[in-house]
């Protein structure tokens, strides 16, 4: 099978900003990655990507929308070539993120908060936030490495 995304593959998902339905992200990401053959460490990759997207979304529900009901989250998943990678954009219309907040947790002393953005950074190859009018835009990118064994 040829793993080059034929052109650019784009999948969009829109869901309620509610912790209850964030499990759908994991299902969807697994579904997308399933169709890429010979992925290196597919389990770690799927789990890590799932967790990164999930952390961005729980922050949106909890911080940007302050757990108020009725709000939405928009996601775009893109498979891109050269090198093969997945790009995920997450948008919301909640409070603006203050990027000067100290986000690195003190790993030597376990703490209750602050692991979310740290995990996103650790689990992705690039990670960006930008305010765009009424929208917050979070973008992450992760390489999809194909194992060499079959080549």
């Amino acid at each position: 099978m040829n793993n080059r995304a034929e052109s650019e593959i784009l999948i969009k998902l829109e869901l309620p900003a509610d912790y209850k339905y964030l499990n759908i992200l994991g299902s969807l990401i697994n579904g997308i990655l399933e169709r890429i053959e010979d992925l290196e460490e597919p389990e770690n990759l799927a789990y890590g990507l799932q967790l990164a997207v999930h952390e961005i979304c729980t922050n949106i529900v909890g911080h940007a929308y302050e757990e108020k009901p009725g709000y939405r989250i928009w996601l775009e998943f893109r498979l891109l070539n050269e090198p093969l990678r997945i790009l995920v954009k997450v948008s919301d219309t909640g409070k603006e993120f203050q990027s000067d907040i100290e986000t690195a947790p003190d790993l030597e002393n376990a703490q209750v908060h602050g692991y979310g953005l740290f995990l996103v950074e650790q689990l992705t190859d690039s990670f960006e936030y930008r305010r765009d009018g009424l929208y917050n835009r979070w973008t992450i990118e992760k390489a999809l490495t194909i194992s060499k064994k079959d080549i």
Partner: protein
Amino acid sequence: MNINVFDIVIRIVTLELEGRLDAFTAPQLRSKLDELQNQSVIRYVLDLTNLEFMDSAGMAVMVTLLKHARQQEGDVKMVLPKLEAARRILRLTRFDRVFDTFETAEEARKSFSI
């Protein structure tokens, strides 16, 4: 004659967590733990063997429990998940150093000193 009896009861509570521990399910765990803390339990085994997914909200509940237990001379022992991808996250966040970790609940329970 005088007979003095000292009765020592050590209670170790094991919680097996299965499925997803995330921002949606973490409150369920938290309220279970509140209940146990109200009963003055200070020794816990968190058995993550069959945990499929855990996020930072789940971790927050575990750290809160750890701090609370250690303040009262208790402790929380962790049984590592089977899933390698989940173990990797525990290493990334150094949770595997902050908590005493074990491969089985039995080993975790035996590790409590009396």
